[in-house]
């Protein structure tokens, strides 16, 4: 007996796709921002820090509205994407991924920044004196030693993406099969009488996914704090 209908599986699959793409997009950006904030002192550092954290404190609807202003068909970035690459984001699953990515960014940056700050800079100095240039020292010392934070941030961001609601519904709307992810489907189900069963099943899936992500991120953060990385 299949516990979920084909439509419900479709919702789960769409949610996973949106969140995975959001993660793939955000990981390198988040790591670069985390590295800048952890290792560099530059003018505008406080501003960057505040900007990255903004989605954490803004009402998600406002974040979604800002995304519409920027990436909408008539927005500056949206126009540019449309005319150069033929990419449209609003009302598409890619737009849902962008909204999820922006909302996940602060959590990911925080986790990664902590783990980069925990890497002893003296080790980087040792690598340099052994003949490694900046890039090799980064790739062989800072990056591998901060990997637990990258995993933790990724998992945390993934969980945040799975649960994203406000920015997504504002920016990408609630289109079945295109942008109706788990939380949007649950919300829609609640609007219609008689769908209590579907709502409950989707809610259980959300809870399980979130719990798994939380446990995984906790595991990686513990490893980062332990500092003794024999498995690498």
């Amino acid at each position, binding site marked *: 007996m299949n516990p979920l209908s084909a439509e419900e599986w479709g919702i789960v699959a769409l949610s996973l796709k949106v969140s995975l793409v959001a993660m793939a997009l955000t990981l390198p950006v988040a790591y670069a921002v985390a590295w800048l904030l952890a290792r560099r002192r530059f003018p505008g550092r406080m501003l960057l820090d505040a900007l990255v954290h903004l989605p954490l404190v803004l009402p998600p609807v406002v974040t979604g509205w800002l995304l519409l202003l920027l990436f909408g068909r008539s927005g500056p970035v949206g126009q540019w994407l449309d005319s150069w690459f033929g990419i449209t984001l609003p009302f598409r699953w890619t737009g849902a991924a962008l909204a999820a990515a922006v909302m996940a960014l602060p959590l990911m940056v925080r986790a990664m920044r902590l783990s980069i700050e925990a890497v002893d800079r003296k080790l980087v100095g040792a690598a340099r004196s052994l003949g490694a240039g900046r890039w090799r020292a980064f790739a062989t010392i800072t990056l591998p030693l901060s990997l637990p934070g990258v995993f933790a941030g990724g998992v945390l961001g993934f969980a945040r993406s799975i649960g994203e609601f406000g920015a997504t519904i504002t920016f990408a709307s609630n289109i079945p099969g295109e942008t109706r992810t788990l939380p949007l489907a649950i919300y829609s189900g609640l609007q219609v009488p008689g769908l209590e069963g579907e709502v409950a099943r989707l809610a259980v899936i959300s809870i399980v996914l979130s719990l798994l992500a939380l446990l995984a991120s906790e595991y990686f953060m513990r490893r980062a704090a332990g*500092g*003794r990385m024999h498995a690498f």
Partner: protein
Amino acid sequence: MHFDIDIAVQRGEREIACRIAADTNLVALVGSSGAGKSSVLDAIAGLLRPMRGRIAIAGETLFDSDAGIDLPPEARRAGYVFQDLRLFPHRRVRANLTYGEKPGGWIGFDEVVALLDIAPLLDRWPATLSGGEAKRVAIGRALLSAPHFLLLDEPLASLDPARGEEILATIESIRDELGLPILHVSHDASEVARLTDIVVRID
């Protein structure tokens, strides 16, 4: 001239001045703890920028504030044995040793392993090494990077007398047989007296 160094290094509020002009292979740098000996070594290795001055070792100018020369650390070819060793925790001993290995260096992997007696350690993680073992690995790692000179920061600290004697003998053979310029930081007068007559004091 093996060592031609005249620098001023900022360390917190203080300014540390260090002058070394010597033609011997091994120069000892002494001074009370906290005097800034390690800062001087960091400046020579390129990990800390001096406020002004000039650093030339074995005929190569590494830093010259007047001439605008400031080689990055990876171009200075320093074999730096740090006081806190700084072995890479995520690499086994073998991978630590080969991190800076240069093909055609003046000493090979097998030679270093034999010289320092570290063959049984090659597959261990740094976190599992004793103080003396870790120290020998750090020295081996520095030697394998085919350095043009050595910076040894308290290389005998935290070693038992027997191990200390072995390391001391190793340093002497590097000094005599390889003719490599060595800057040796220590607070132990007898250790210094045995290695060299040229002692530079930092206060």
